[in-house]
């Protein structure tokens, strides 16, 4: 009776060893069918209307390997994305924490956060162009404004969602304010913060592309506009696929970080 319920313990602690390949099979078949249909359709239709996957791959090879313009576009989009998103994460978590923790800060900042969160941030791009020009700074500003609000709002929710009983527990053990923050409030709100980081990431990627399409000087968004205007449909798909890949990679990186930092969260 000392080790009660060992069966429950092992089943929760260890993932099932036997892996099923069925999901991968379904995904594979689906991909083959969709890409195959697309290829057949693409070859029969006007190439300006729809490029086939093979034509897109050929265009991608040409762009990725040979075009300095494309390589630069990826680097520019990525650096502005990472900079703006990084700033938004830092500021968003700090502001969200302060707003969730101190009523005064919340009352003072809430009107702006609510108003700006409700405003489509792309509507601000013309104003931001006047302030920041049309290059790097503009993209960083747009990414920042796109990402920061979901991060703030989720962090506030996380800080406020802290279990009162656990706060009382920290108090019963005479934890200081700083210790309570570190050992209770921060870990408790981490899953919420990560939810905000994921939403903020998606918003930031939309932001950088829209900024590049509007200012249309450089970056993947500008390339999309250029190939669209030139009716180069196969090339047009390449920056779109690149953006999709970047999104997937960054989302995956955030999820990985979340798994490492909140290992308990999957258990509940």
């Amino acid at each position: 009776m000392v080790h009660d319920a060992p069966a429950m313990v092992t089943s929760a602690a260890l993932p099932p060893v036997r892996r099923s390949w069925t999901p991968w099979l379904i995904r594979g078949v689906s991909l083959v069918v969709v890409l195959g249909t697309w290829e057949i359709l693409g070859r029969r239709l006007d190439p300006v209307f729809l490029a086939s996957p093979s034509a897109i791959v050929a265009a991608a090879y040409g762009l990725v390997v040979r075009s300095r313009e494309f390589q630069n576009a990826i680097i520019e989009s990525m650096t502005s994305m990472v900079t703006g998103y990084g700033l938004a994460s830092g500021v968003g978590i700090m502001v969200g924490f302060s707003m969730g923790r101190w009523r005064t800060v919340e009352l003072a900042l809430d009107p702006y956060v609510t108003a700006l969160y409700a405003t489509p941030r792309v509507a601000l791009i013309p104003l931001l162009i006047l302030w920041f020009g049309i290059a790097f700074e503009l993209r960083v500003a747009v990414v920042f404004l796109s990402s920061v609000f979901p991060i703030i709002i989720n962090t506030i929710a996380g800080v406020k969602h802290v279990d009162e009983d656990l706060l009382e527990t920290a108090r019963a053990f005479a934890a200081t304010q700083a210790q309570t923050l570190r050992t209770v409030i921060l870990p408790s709100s981490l899953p919420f913060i990560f939810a905000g980081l994921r939403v903020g990431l998606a918003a930031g990627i939309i932001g950088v592309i829209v900024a590049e399409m509007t200012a249309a000087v450089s970056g993947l968004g500008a390339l999309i506009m250029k190939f669209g205007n030139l009716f180069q449909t196969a090339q047009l798909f390449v920056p779109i696929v690149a953006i999709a890949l970047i999104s997937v990679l960054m989302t995956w990186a955030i999820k990985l970080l979340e798994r490492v930092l909140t290992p308990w969260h999957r258990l509940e």
Partner: protein
Amino acid sequence: MLEVSGIRKTFVQGRVATEVIRGISLTVADGEFVSLIGPSGCGKTTLLKIVAGLLPPTAGQVALDGKPSLAPSRQKAFVFQHFNLFPWRTVLDNAAYALELDGVDTRTRAERARGLLQGVGLAGFEQYYPAQISGGMRQRVGLVRALLLNPRVLLMDEPFGALDALTREVLQGELLRLLAATPRVSTLFVTHSIDEAIYLSDRILVFSMRPASVVREFAVPLRKPRYEYNWRRDPTVVGLREEIWNLLREAAQHGT
């Protein structure tokens, strides 16, 4: 020695004032185990929280070894009914929580936590999270967390109330064993179970309905260690059980 004197508590919410505790004084000597038993909602938990420093009393004083002690302190450890383990901490880190707050270095606190965890059969579970272990195991961690810092006072709020009957009995035995190893600690234990109070306590205080006051005090004259024999059949227990039961029933009827 824990001294609680003249505690009153009235909760005020808007214009409604609810008197919960009407003058309670009690002492718990070093190494003594005192249970508080009474009808639900009578204010036992409120009293425990006042002693812990989690609630301010309306009047009265709490003193530990002669010094006023109305604020939370790691000298007064709390064991909660619903365990209150931190879900993001492993068994080991939950157990060592108070040591960590005290600034004890990682290695020392792991060593000390491992020692006590092993004593309650949790060796090998140090790296598990609370969600991965049973209720009984969680409360063992709660016990270790409370006792690891060698507190002067142990405050327990129906710690076994959320467990099944069998696990409950096993944990009562383990609590007695742990306490036998920490002879100076004064324990104040809130419970609904008469048998639990008899089995564990040196003295039992029976509370009235709200506003709470102590109706009567019983000494439990059973020989120790009690986990070594069948105390339930002891004739003094049968009489004591009956007497407490009658008092509680009376208190409950007066309330309604």
